[in-house]
Every structure is written in structure tokens, then in C-alpha cells.
């Protein structure tokens, strides 16, 4: 913790001169019984002062028994203790609720929180570590206003993180992650949450513009744990538990399936599909139980050691994360190590180096939906009379007529695993030639190797459809070498006491190199494990390889100024030169400016000091860019293929992508206004912000009329217009303490309104997700667009009356029990012009609620997250409610679906043919309310201090995602997706409830 460090040196400089009347000694520790070095110890009313040493011990002389000793330290509440007759005074410092003087990391610098002029949210590692997650952003959900996190289930899946809504409609919406000053791309899967000291979310462009061309989706800065001056301390964390996978649907059993399908066939005029359903009674294949484990273990462990002297501090941690897959094979395992050393050679020179070796291994099947979709009559294995005994072990499985491949067999065949090895080395050298000037040079090299091995055995389950006639082996190797070098000079100076100014200038160079190699072969002599190597392939070898490289060179600067800690100004400027930018446009500029007025420090506010502990107004503006583009944007590539001429294989070539010569770069400009306040010594604090973000020249892989013949289904990257998103972020925190009981609550509230300001042509309509979403000027992007399902025809009279004025039926193939589609434009025809806006994938607001209580050794944390007001498309009903397909249906569908007047006004009659297009017309039938409230985390802990020879022992029990309230009937209401295809829920991997036991030991 940097501020402790600084505090310590300040304390050292003020070494007291003692007069030696009464010598008092003691130890200063924090609540967790951790000694605090560098605490100021002052004899009140005198100039006598001292400081605690590395073990928290101090000695000080006081003049007499009436003296009072004051202990103070940044981040803790000061304490005054009367000496009396005591000669030993040990105190436990309470962490202060004052957050104002925290240090906040901003791009290429760290500043006091009170000096921040733009919109930055800070989260401590501690808060992130209450959850056991593979990807730390999952525990960020609901803790920061303005950040939406859509969870992704599955080992190693990456949640979608949106900072203040979307700013781009086709490119990646993930923010840039910067770890210890080094940009690390848009995935943070490699980092264990135990490694994190703090996380800062740069929400507006005035904060993120310093990251220029990559900052349009916001920037998340992560600071990892560093060593602390003091004795060597060990910390061990373990949480381990079970992820629970319940079947999201109650699927029909064999008899029920036969009944449902027969109804569908009969309703379409066919004879029974499976005559005499009762013969299947008791013969259900329970696919789910056969292939899916209800509980799968997850473990997160970490062992850390920190310590150091004033010359050298270190922090070493070993972290392990393991999440098994619900298939019983594969999963995600990660071992990371972080070795951080910081050296202080002299008052002028310091340096540090962090090594971060990592290993990940992952891979697991992904066909869990097939366990629900496959029909329940097909057995897992072929019946004995269809087996000859000569089949290989992959061919003994039965084929389902439902088109769904035998999922048990697919899991059995699965052999596709990836090992990933990385080493990140990050070092800096810092030089302070004169007071206030810091020159810093930092370099980082990331070397990574990803090896993916895949083997596909030969098998014949069905000679027509489900087979691989020959086995194959594949190997991919990807090597990455990325380096960054950045140099900054920062000068801080206070002029005439009240003018505080700081100037930072610097430059950075980054290069990213990737090399890939792929090999393929067939005809491995047998499927045994030891033969699963490329070398063993005897036929049809193939290979390919690529090398790609990109680079970025930038100049950065920041100027900050404040007058008397009342009026603040910060301006930043970045100039990026990027290899990804197009020929004529290699360089781009990204400016920002922000101001802040700390009202509380005004003289006239003096009278309110009892009530107000903070009051500030902020405003900021900035411009950022988006360089995250595929190369195809500016290049028309030639693809390679094969054909036969004269019986011989010949090469062929074709246009595989087409460049848009007129393309421009996408920029985001935003403006934000904020108010920060604290009341009653920050017992109640918060911030309220309004933001408005404009994206110009949005880049989109637009689908043009298909007669254009553009490659990739007539798509081309193009600038499609501009979009505005605006909204408010609100954070309210309340903290209080009565005796041993303390509690707190944080509420985050975020709204995002998105609107298309203009499209490239007047009246243009932009379709997405085939033509199921529409984007037009003046409305939100990507709204659901289709027919209006107006209930079901309950009887013949209703059916006969759905006509035009001449009595011609609007839906000629409809029967009673089918969906009535609305003639929206009232022209007496049901056609494409009757499609309209039928829903919105965008939430009205997101609310997070974080509660914590503590009583003596007990503590309790609860986190809730909700998304309110968005719609979702439940695509699964096209399988689960639809008699036209042979996949399994939900149990009791024959009774849930319309089967007589008044039996349902929602699920249409079962029909094999679906001539009314109940399921093939995209209509409001598919739209459901996607709002949800989810309890992300509930944790109860008990801590022992100074027991069992340990400084601290904490035991905890927690549940994640235990409870979800929603009206959505699909798999999981947390649904991601691209911007013009957002909100399409299907068989997305559900966010699983998890029960965990935790152990934390410090010694």
C-alpha cells in the first residue's frame, strides 16, 4: 500500500527528540491484528513525535501523566489516549470511513481521490475477493455504477462488460484492461482475483482519453498487490465448493414425448408418429442424468507472502483456480504466480520488477443443450441386436431421429484441450532528480504460447448422418510476443502556496506479434491415447501458418492544476500512431479536459462542515477512438480454394473480403457532469453523474442488398452513422457503527438510453440478426422487429373474422389454435409491412445493492444485481413448444399448448406442419420480459484474531447466484450478444449457483 509507505517516510523524517521523563512503549495494530508500521505517534500539544517500526512497535517519551498521545495514520481514524499511569499503550487502529484521501490510479499516474476531476470508480481488491470467480469482472457486477456486466457461464467464459452502455455497434464492446500500467487487451481471464489490490474503472472519456485509440469502450486499470514494509507475512486463501447445474427445463419423458408428437402429427392430418405411447412408459432415457453432473467442484486458492525493508519490498503469490466442467471431463485450470520486487536504491532512484508466469489448461464439451433436445425414446447405446462386437468404443451409441447427435457419445469422443503458457515481465526504473520531478521508464514483455491439441476418433453411429469415416488429429500452436515501453516525466509543484500544478509528458511504444501454426492429419492407425499425435497420421496431411504484427506509438501528456484545492483542471492529450490505421490516417489525436469545483473548501461552506464532509462538482469532456478493427476493413483479400479440372485438383481464388475505400475511423466523444458528496463524516456518501456519449462514424459490418454480391453474405465494413447514449450513474454508500455492530450499504444505479442520431442515408433501415432487429434514426439501435402475435384463434368464429373487408382470410392456412398475427397497418393484408417494433433488448436501468454487516468476529456480505425493463427473445421455444421438430419437448406440452377453446392464448396448437408459421414467423410470441434480480453473492464469515498461533483465521460460507427472480422462461436472463443482435436468448450456458466454503489464514 503506497500511502503507508509514504506515511512511513514522512514519519521517519520527523524523528522526535525525546526528553526522557516517562517512556511509553507499545504496539499499533489494525483490526485484523496486523501491526502497522509508520504510524505517527505524537504527544499532543508538544513537538514530540515518533513512529512505529516495521513490527508496529514504538517508544516515546512524555513529559508527565497528564499527557495525551495521538496515533494517526492515513486511512485510519486518529486516536487520542491519555497516558495516566500506563507505561505501555497498545492500540488497535480503526480504519477510517474517510475515503477522500485514497490514492486512485489514473492513466500513467496515481492521484489523490480528492484531486480526481473525471469519472473514475475504484474498487478494492478485498471487495472483489468475496466471490470465487475465474474472471474478476464477474465480481465487479453491481459494485460500480455505470458498469454493466453480463455473466457468461461455463469454465473460462468471459463475461461481457459494458461501461456506460455501448458506444459501438459492431466491434468488440469490451473495455481495455491495463494491468500495472501495461495495456493487456480486452480479456482479463489470466488474472486471479486474489492478485488484485485495486481496480479503477475509467468511465468517461476525460479519464480514458489518455489511452486514445483503444479507449472507446472505457478502460479498467488494475493494480496488483505489492510488497509492504514490515515483517514477512503469509496469507493463505482457499475457497472451494460446488457449482450446481440444474436442468433449466422439465423435459418430457418417453411416453409424454410420444403423446406430444402424436398430437402434433394428428393435428396436421398424419397418423401417430409413435403409436401406442403407453408402450414407452418407464422406458425413458434420462439423458440429463446420463451426461450432466449436478454438482461440479470449483476451487480458488492462493498463497501469498509479503514483506520488506525500506530498501526492498516484495510480494509473492501463488494462485490456483480450478473449475471442472459439468460433463465430467475437462474444465478450466489456472496456475499463476506473481513475484513483485520493489527497490529503493536511494532517495532518487527506485526500481521494480514483477514476474508473472502463468499456466492455463482448458477445454470442455459444449453440447449440454443436446441433453435436453434429444428425444427421450432413443436409448444411449444401440440395442444388442444392432451390435456386432466389432465396432470401436465410439460406435456403440444409438442414433436419434431428432437430428440431435447422441450427446453422450459426443462427450465420449471429446478430446480438444488447450494449454497456455505465459510469462509477463514488467519492470520500471524511477528517478527523482529534483523535488517534484519524477522520471519513470517502464517496460513489459509478455511471451505466450498456446498449444491446442484435438483428436477426433472415427466412429459410425449412423451411416448417413452421424459418423466420421476416418479419424483425425490436429494441433494448433500460437506464439505471442508483445512488448511495451513507456517513459514519462512528471513534475509537481506548488506555486505561491495555493497554485498546485502537475505536468506529465511521455511516450510509449507497443508491439504485438503473433505467429500461428496448424497441422492436420488423418488415418491415425488406432484411437488409443498414445497414438493421438500428428506424427501418427498416415493420410491427408495439411498445415497452415500465419504471422501478424501490429504496433502503436504514442505521445501522452497530462496537465493538472488546482487553486487552493478548490478549483481543479485536468487536461490530457494523446497522439497515437497505429499500424492499424489506414494509409492516409496513420496518426490521430485524442484530447480531453475536465474541471472540478470542491465547494466544501470554500470559506462560505465553513458552517456546514458538521453536516457535509465532501461536496464537489465535476465536468469533463474527451474524445477517444476505436482501432480494434479487422484488417479486412481496408483490404480486399483473395481467398483460396480448389476445384477439379480434367480430373485433377486445381487451385481456385475468389474475393473473400471487400474493402470499403471510403471508410473513416470511429470516434467517441463524451461529456459528463458529476456531483460527489459526503454527509456526516462520510457516513453517507455518493456520487451522481450524468453522461452523454456520442459515437460518430460508427463502424459496422453491414449487410447490403444481397444482389451486391459482396463476400460474406453481402457484408462490408462501413460507417453507418452516429449514435448517442446518455444516462445517469448514481452511487450511494452508507456506513455506520454502533458498538461492535457495523453495517454498510452501497447502492449503484445506472441508466442507459441509446439512440441512433443518424444513419448513413436518410430513411435507412439497418437490419441485424438476419432481419429480426431493426435500427432506424431516432430510435434505439437493434430493437426487435417482427409481427405482432395477437393471441390464438380460440374458435372458428374468431378465425373466420380475421379477414379483409372482402372476407378474404388474412392467414389462409390458419386453424383454430394458431397464432393470430396482427394486421398492424390495417391494409387488409398480412405481409412484411405489418412488422413493427416488438421489444427492446436495452434495460431501463441496472441496480446493484451491496450490503455488509459485522458483529464482533462475524461478518456478512450480500450482493444483488438487477437489470430492469429489457426484453429477451426466447429462441428455445422454437424447439421446446414446436411440434414441427422432432426434438424433445417440455413435459406436458400437449396440455400447455392450445387444445380447445380457452386452454391457452399463448402456446399455439401442436402441429407437425405449422402451416400458419407460428414458429417460423418472427413475432412477439418470442418476446419475453427479461428483467431480473439476482443475488450474486451471500457470504457469512467468522474471524479469529490471534488464535491458534495465527494472526488471523477466517472461515466463511458463501453462495453465489443462489436466487434469481425473473419472468423470463428461457435458460438464463443474463444474455449477451452483439449490439444489433443483443438479447437473443437461447441455449446460453446458465450462470450456475455455487456453494463455497472459504478459509483465510494470515500469519
Amino acid at each position, binding site marked *: 500500500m503506497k500511502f503507508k509507505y509514504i506515511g512511513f517516510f514522512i514519519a521517519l523524517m520527523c524523528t522526535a527528540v525525546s526528553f526522557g521523563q516517562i517512556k511509553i512503549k507499545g504496539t499499533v495494530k489494525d483490526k485484523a491484528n496486523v501491526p502497522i508500521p509508520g504510524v505517527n505517534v505524537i504527544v499532543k500539544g508538544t513537538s514530540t513525535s515518533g513512529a512505529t517500526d516495521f513490527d508496529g512497535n514504538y517508544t516515546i517519551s512524555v513529559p508527565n501523566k497528564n499527557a495525551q498521545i495521538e496515533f494517526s495514520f492515513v486511512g485510519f481514524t486518529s486516536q487520542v489516549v491519555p497516558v495516566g499511569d500506563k507505561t505501555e499503550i497498545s492500540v488497535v487502529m480503526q480504519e477510517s470511513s474517510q475515503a477522500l484521501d485514497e490514492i486512485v490510479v489514473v492513466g500513467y499516474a496515481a492521484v489523490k481521490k480528492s484531486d480526481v476531476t473525471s469519472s473514475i470508480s475504484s474498487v478494492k481488491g478485498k471487495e472483489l475477493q468475496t466471490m470465487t470467480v475465474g474472471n474478476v469482472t464477474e465480481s465487479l457486477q453491481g459494485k460500480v455504477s455505470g458498469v454493466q456486466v453480463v455473466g457468461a457461464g461455463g469454465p473460462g467464459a468471459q463475461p461481457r462488460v459494458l461501461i456506460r452502455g455501448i458506444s459501438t455497434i459492431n466491434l468488440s464492446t469490451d473495455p481495455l484492461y491495463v494491468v500495472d500500467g501495461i495495456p493487456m487487451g480486452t480479456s482479463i481471464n489470466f488474472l486471479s482475483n486474489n492478485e488484485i489490490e485495486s481496480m479503477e474503472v475509467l468511465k468517461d472519456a476525460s479519464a480514458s482519453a489518455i489511452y486514445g485509440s483503444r479507449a472507446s469502450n472505457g478502460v479498467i486499470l488494475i493494480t496488483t498487490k505489492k510488497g509492504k514494509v514490515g515483517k514477512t507475512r503469509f496469507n493463505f486463501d482457499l475457497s472451494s465448493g460446488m457449482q450446481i447445474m440444474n436442468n433449466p427445463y422439465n423435459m418430457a419423458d418417453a411416453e409424454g414425448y410420444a403423446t406430444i408428437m402424436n398430437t402434433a402429427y394428428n393435428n396436421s392430418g398424419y397418423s401417430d408418429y409413435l403409436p401406442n405411447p403407453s408402450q414407452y412408459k418407464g422406458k425413458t432415457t434420462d439423458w440429463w442424468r446420463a451426461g450432466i453432473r449436478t454438482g461440479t467442484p470449483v476451487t480458488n486458492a492462493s498463497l501469498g507472502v509479503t514483506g520488506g525493508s525500506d530498501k526492498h519490498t516484495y510480494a509473492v503469490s501463488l494462485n490456483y483456480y480450478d473449475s471442472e466442467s459439468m460433463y465430467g471431463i475437462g474444465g478450466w485450470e489456472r496456475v499463476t504466480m506473481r513475484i513483485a520486487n520493489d527497490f529503493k536504491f536511494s532517495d532518487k532512484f527506485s526500481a521494480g520488477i514483477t514476474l508473472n508466469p502463468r499456466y492455463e489448461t482448458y477445454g470442455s464439451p459444449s453440447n449440454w443443450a443436446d441433453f435436453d433436445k434429444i428425444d427421450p425414446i432413443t436409448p444411449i447405446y444401440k440395442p444388442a441386436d444392432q451390435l456386432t462386437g466389432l465396432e470401436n468404443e465410439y460406435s456403440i451409441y444409438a442414433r436419434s431421429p431428432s437430428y440431435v447427435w447422441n450427446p453422450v457419445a459426443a462427450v465420449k469422443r471429446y478430446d480438444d484441450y488447450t494449454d497456455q503458457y505465459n510469462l509477463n515481465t514488467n519492470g520500471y526504473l524511477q528517478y527523482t532528480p529534483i523535488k517534484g520531478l519524477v522520471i519513470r521508464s517502464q517496460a513489459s514483455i509478455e511471451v505466450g504460447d498456446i498449444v491446442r491439441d484435438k483428436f477426433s476418433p472415427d466412429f459410425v453411429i449412423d451411416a448417413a448422418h452421424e459418423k466420421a469415416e476416418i479419424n483425425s488429429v490436429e494441433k494448433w500452436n500460437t506464439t505471442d510476443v508483445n512488448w511495451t515501453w513507456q517513459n514519462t516525466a512528471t513534475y509537481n509543484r506548488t506555486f505561491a502556496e495555493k497554485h498546485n500544478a502537475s505536468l506529465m509528458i511521455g511516450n510509449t511504444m507497443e508491439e504485438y506479434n503473433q505467429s500461428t501454426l496448424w497441422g492436420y492429419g488423418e488415418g491415425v492407425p488406432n484411437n488409443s491415447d498414445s497414438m493421438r499425435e500428428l506424427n501418427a497420421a498416415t493420410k491427408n496431411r495439411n498445415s497452415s501458418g500465419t504471422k501478424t504484427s501490429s504496433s502503436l*506509438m504514442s505521445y501522452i501528456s497530462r496537465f493538472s492544476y488546482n487553486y487552493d484545492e478548490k478549483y481543479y483542471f485536468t487536461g490530457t492529450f494523446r497522439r497515437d500512431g497505429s499500424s492499424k490505421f489506414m494509409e492516409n490516417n496513420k496518426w490521430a489525436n485524442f484530447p480531453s479536459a475536465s474541471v472540478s469545483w470542491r465547494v466544501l473548501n470554500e470559506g462560505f461552506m465553513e458552517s456546514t462542515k458538521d453536516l457535509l464532509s465532501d461536496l464537489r462538482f465535476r465536468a469533463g469532456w474527451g474524445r477517444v477512438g476505436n482501432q480494434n478493427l479487422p484488417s479486412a476493413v481496408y483490404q480486399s483479400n483473395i481467398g483460396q480454394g480448389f476445384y477439379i479440372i480434367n480430373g485433377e485438383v486445381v*487451385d*481456385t481464388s475468389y474475393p473473400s473480403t471487400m474493402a470499403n475505400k471510403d471508410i473513416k475511423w470511429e470516434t467517441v466523444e463524451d461529456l459528463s457532469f458529476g456531483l460527489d458528496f459526503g454527509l456526516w463524516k462520510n457516513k453517507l456518501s455518493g456520487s451522481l453523474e450524468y453522461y452523454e456519449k456520442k459515437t460518430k462514424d460508427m463502424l459496422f459490418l453491414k449487410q447490403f442488398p*444481397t444482389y451486391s454480391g459482396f463476400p460474406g453474405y453481402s457484408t462490408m465494413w462501413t460507417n453507418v452513422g452516429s449514435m448517442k447514449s446518455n444516462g445517469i450513474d448514481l452511487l450511494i454508500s452508507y456506513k455506520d457503527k454502533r458498538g461492535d455492530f457495523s453495517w454498510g450499504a452501497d447502492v449503484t444505479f445506472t441508466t442507459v438510453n441509446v439512440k441512433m442520431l443518424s444513419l448513413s442515408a436518410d430513411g435507412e433501415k439497418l437490419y441485424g440478426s438476419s432481419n429480426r432487429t431493426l435500427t432506424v434514426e431516432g430510435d434505439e439501435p437493434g430493437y426487435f422487429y417482427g409481427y405482432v402475435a395477437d393471441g390464438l384463434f380460440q374458435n372458428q368464429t374468431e378465425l373466420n373474422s380475421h379477414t379483409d373487408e372482402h372476407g378474404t382470410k388474412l392467414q389462409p392456412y390458419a386453424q383454430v389454435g394458431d397464432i393470430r398475427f396482427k394486421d398492424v397497418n390495417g391494409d387488409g393484408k398480412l405481409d412484411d409491412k405489418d412488422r413493427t417494433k416488438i421489444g427492446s433488448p436495452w434495460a431501463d436501468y441496472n441496480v446493484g445493492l451491496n450490503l455488509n454487516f459485522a458483529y464482533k468476529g462475524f461478518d456478512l456480505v450480500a450482493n444483488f444485481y438487477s437489470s430492469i425493463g429489457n426484453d429477451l427473445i426466447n429462441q428455445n421455444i422454437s424447439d421446446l413448444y414446436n411440434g414441427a*421438430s422432432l426434438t424433445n419437448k417440455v413435459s406436458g406440452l400437449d396440455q400447455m399448448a392450445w387444445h380447445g377453446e380457452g386452454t391457452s392464448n399463448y402456446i399455439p396448437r401442436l402441429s407437425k406442419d405449422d402451416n400458419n408459421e407460428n414458429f417460423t414467423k418472427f413475432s412477439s410470441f418470442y418476446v419475453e420480459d427479461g428483467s431480473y434480480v439476482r443475488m450474486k453473492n451471500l457470504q457469512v464469515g467468522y474471524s479469529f484474531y490471534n488464535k491458534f498461533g495465527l494472526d488471523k483465521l477466517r472461515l466463511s460460507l458463501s453462495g453465489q447466484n443462489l436466487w434469481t427472480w425473473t419472468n423470463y422462461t428461457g435458460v438464463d436472463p443474463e444474455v449477451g450478444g452483439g449490439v444489433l443482435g443483443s438479447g437473443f436468448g437461447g441455449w446460453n450456458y446458465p450462470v450456475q449457483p455455487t456453494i463455497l466454503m472459504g478459509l483465510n489464514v494470515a500469519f
Partner: protein
Amino acid sequence: MKKIIVSIITFSLLAVSCSDFIEKEERGTQTLENYFQTVQECENYTNELTHRLLLPNDWWTLIAPRVTNEMSTDDAWMGNTGQDSGAHRPCSQYLITPDNMGDMNSIYTAHYYTIQSANIGLEKMALSPITDAQKDQYMGESLFVRAYCYYELVNLFGGVPVYTKSLGTGDLTLERNTAEEVYAQVESDLKEAAAKLENAPVAKDGRINKWAAYALLARVSLFQEKWAEAKLYSNKVITEGPFALESDFLKIWDVNNHNGIESILEAQSSSVQDKSLGSALPTLSGARGEDKKNFPSNDAGDVLDGWGWCMPTSDLENAYLSENDEIRRRSTITKWGEAAYGDEVLNPTHKFSLNDNKSGRICRKYYIPIATRRSLDKKDGHLPLNIPLIRLAEMYLTRAEANYHLGGDALSDINVIRARVKLDPKTGISGPTLLRQIYKERRLELAFEGLRLYDIRREKDPTTGRPVIESLMGPNGTFVQYNLNSTDPYETTNLREPQDKGINFDASKHLLWPIPQLEIDLSNGLIKQNPNY
């Protein structure tokens, strides 16, 4: 310390001076800008255009619409009664709407991709540093491909937008041309192609040659009822071209007779094992549910399980029977339990799952002989069955039909075709009877060769003057009524594909398929829908 300052300043200066640092080229990929510089590049590009006439190794893009078209006629059922028919049903049962076109979407997009690619190629090759003879050859082939795509589009969807220059994003305000305009472009492209290919070698190797251009000209002339031109071009191909009728009808579709003597142009295939260049048609339309027990060898290697789509109707079989046309019947249809024609020794009783087959019949033209099956490690995607696109017999039939309308000798051409399959010549027929015989001969000869739907849409019933399809389909259509009163033991017992196929046919719209709704939407309504959809 000074060193650091110096080095930082040096670094900054260095950084400014070496802006090479931010120059990175894309490696390993050629770009359109610098392509078409060599003969090989032009040839490769043209090869792909030729490949895209049918994409024979891709079961979905063009093969599936092709068989779906067959299923929309009186020749074929969807056939597979065990599985979901959603891709074929909208067309086959005439329930198609612009929102629900099954697999008929993909052909529209795919052919336009090919047209745009051909336009790019034509523009670039015109400027390419290759010889004029080479330019003529590759540009001639490209023009043929463009014409073929437009010919298919106009037959499926009617007048579609026509363009002959490569399009950019600013050029996308096209509207539909008339069918006449599309045909005019087709003819002009074919004539230009024929001229450019005049001196190119005719190697019968899968490459497009001038005879293919003339033959397609004959076809599109016939389709437009330009009888004189139809006669002119078909006659030219018959009399001047290096083609002859196969003496054995079975040799036309034969894994061992690629690009045979009768073939004018074929979609190529190969069993080469390290690429997927086999034909997907025998898989998509092969017999479903073969069982090794039904082969004398009792060997799983003889089994080639197809997906069972597009199965012959008894109505088609009756057409052969009514002419005692054994050779063409058995070369076109294998009935359940019959020997595979020409493969009697190894497959004397070809059986398959009747439960999954509407008609108990499969298409013999798409059959892969047992010997070939045994020779392949990998079968799916590697079946070496070329698919004829144009062959000589069609030219005789075209000339016959043209002659009929021009008052020439139609019978003798028909009798040439009949003689090859050992049928007695027709004599003494004329007028509507003769025209019906020409139509019938076309059906018997060219069944399952991708022409039936186009033929019944354009052929006029001599009695009513209306398209033949209107007399076959609809509630009173002869094909519909035949099936509703049929006694066929297979078709009438497997009702999972309804017997009333074609009953929903509506002459006011079903002479064309609808334009995909997506296209209407993406063009912002500039592309208009076909009538009554």
C-alpha cells in the same frame, strides 16, 4: 541520471524518426488490388467461377435448392419421411412465403456473389498483363458463368436486378429489371462468351467452352419461345460440336465416365481424399437406411447411407411404363428391392428404409456403385459423381420443340433420343399430340437433371395455352388428383409426406418463387416482391 534523460530524449527522437515502426503489412494474403497479374492468377479465379455454377461439393448452397426444385414438380417427393423437412417443404408443398423460403434463399445470394465476382474478374482481367488469347479464354468463361447465374435467377425469381460492372457501396440503388432484360443480358453474355472462346481448345475437361455457350443459348432461346434461335443454336451444337449421344444411357451419370462424349458441361467432382471435392448430391439424395445385411457381401463398406431427400414419384415411373421405357426407367428410378441397374451383381436387391421413404423409390442417376463405395476411405464429401449441366440429348429435344413451332421435322429428333434407349420410333403424330410427346420425352430423358421445374413453368399446355404446371398442380391438377386416387403401395401407405402435394399451388403467384424478404428489407424496399406474395 543524465543517462536516463539522454536516453529518453533519444528514444523520443528515435520514435519520431522511425515511423516505420507503425507500418505493418498483412502477410500471407493476396489482395484484389494486386491480383490478376499472372496467367495462373487469372485461371485460378476463373476456376472458382466455374466451380460456382453448382458448387457440387457443397450440399447446401446450390445443391439443396436444386433438389428442392425437383421436389416442387411431379417428378419427386421430398421423400424423407423420417426427418424434419422444413428446408424443402415451403417450396415442395407450395406454402412458400418471403419469410419462410426453406433452402430457396441461398441460391439467390450465392448466384449474385458469383455475378459480382465475375464482374470484378472481367474488369481486372481486361487490364491484366496476359496475352489476348488468354484474356479471351478466361473472360469468355467468366461471361458464361455470369450468364448461367442470371439464367437460373430469372427462371426462379423472374426479373431480377441486372448489372455488369462491379458494384461498390454507393451503387446499391438497383431495382428489378424485367425478365426480358435479364434474358437479353444472358444472351449477350453468351454470344460474347462464344465469340471469345471461339479459338479456345475444347478439351472436355470441365472447363467451359464455346459449345456450352451455344447450348445454353439454345436453352434460353427455347425458354423465351424464340424458336428460330433455339433451332439455330441447338442445330449448331448437334452438327458442329464434338459430341455424340452415349450409346448406353447409364453412361451419362457414371462415376467412371466423367465428361463423356455426350457431356457439354458438367459440374466436376473427385474422390481425392485430402480435399472435399466429391459430389454432395448422392449423399443428400441417396437411399436412406441401407443395411449391410441387404448386400450380398454383408460388408459395412458397401453401405452408403444417403439422406433420402428428393425421391422419384410413381407418377414419373408411370410415365416411363407408359412408353415401355425400361432403360430410362431403370436408369432413373430404382424401386425398393430391385437390383441397382448396372450394378446387379454387387447390389441385386437394393433395399433401404421404407419407413423413411415416401415412395419406396430412389433416384438411380444419383447412385454410387458398390465398387466405388468400396474404394473410398472417406465417402461423404468424396463421391466422384459429376453432375451434367448441359448435354447433347437436350439439344435434340430443343431442336425438336423448336422445329415443332417452326413447322419443321420434330419427330426425327425425338426418335434419335428414343432409339438410343431402344424404343420404337414415334410416327404419324402431330399437333398437340406431338407437342405433348416432345414434352414427355424431355421429362423422361432429363428427369432429375435440374430442368423439370423450369420446363413445366414455361411449357404451354396445347389445349389451354397455359403453363403446364397449372394443369398438374392445384386442387384439380392431374398430378394432385392422380396421387389422391393413387393405389401405389408405397406412396399411399407412407402418409408422413402428404399425398396431396401440389394442392396449394396458386397460379397467380407460384410460377415464380418469392424474392427473399431479407432482400426486400436490405434494399429498403427498392426491390419489389413478386405478385401476390
